[in-house]
Structures are given as structure tokens and as C-alpha cells.
């Protein structure tokens, strides 16, 4: 059910024009420490490539 929810959420965010790479979904099990580190590396690289977020950000 969570998968369905996020499948639609990701498509919808992409549709309204928020870069799809800013919201990332993945599965990591409790025994996958290595994978966790890889995911964090991957996510950081992706977000870094996009630069700071400017859309939907509230100016405080």
C-alpha cells in the first residue's frame, strides 16, 4: 500500500513540475548496511547535481 501511495506521489510531483530526483523512494532491509551507505551516496550525488531547491520552499 505504501508502494502504491508513493508510486502515485512521485508521478504527481513530477507532473506538477517538481524535479523527480528530489523525492526518492527505495527499499532497504535491516541487513543491508552496505546498501544503505550506497543509497545515501547516490541520493546525495543526485541532489547535489540538481542544486539547492527553489520550488515550493517557504521563505522564512
Amino acid at each position, binding site marked *: 500500500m*505504501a508502494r502504491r501511495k508513493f508510486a502515485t506521489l512521485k508521478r504527481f*510531483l513530477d507532473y506538477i513540475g517538481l524535479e523527480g530526483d528530489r*523525492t526518492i523512494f*527505495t527499499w532497504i532491509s535491516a541487513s543491508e548496511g552496505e546498501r544503505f*551507505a550506497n543509497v*545515501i551516496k547516490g*541520493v546525495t550525488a543526485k*541532489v547535489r547535481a540538481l542544486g539547492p*531547491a527553489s*520550488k515550493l520552499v517557504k521563505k522564512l
Partner: protein
Amino acid sequence: MAENLANKEWVPKIVAIVCNWCTYAGADLAGISRIQYPPNVRIIRVPCTGRINPFYVAKALQTGADGVLVSG
């Protein structure tokens, strides 16, 4: 202070919303195994991925996160 911050290289702020039983334990394991990973994530632990309201994602983006990771 502000000057110092401006001079620093920009690092992304990433919010990770993770399941207590899967990814959180995985992160713990990565910690005990001393695997190196970037320090830019802020982890929010939830009881289950099903607990995550899509609103959390929108709210994180609105309040200044550069990226949101949802993991179960």
C-alpha cells in the same frame, strides 16, 4: 557567521523518512560496520513506511529540504 556560511561549499540537506524495522536498522548496521557515507541526511524514524503521510514529503520540501528520501 553568515559570511562563513556563504563561503562554504553548498551541501544538500536531505531528509530521510525511514521505517523503524527496515532502513533504520539498516542505518544502524551501517554505523556498527563503520561504513562511510555522506553526513547530509537527517533521519526521521517512523513506525512503518505505511505511516508516512505524503504530506511529510511536501512539508519537508516546503521547509527547506533539498531532497527527500523515503525508505522502507
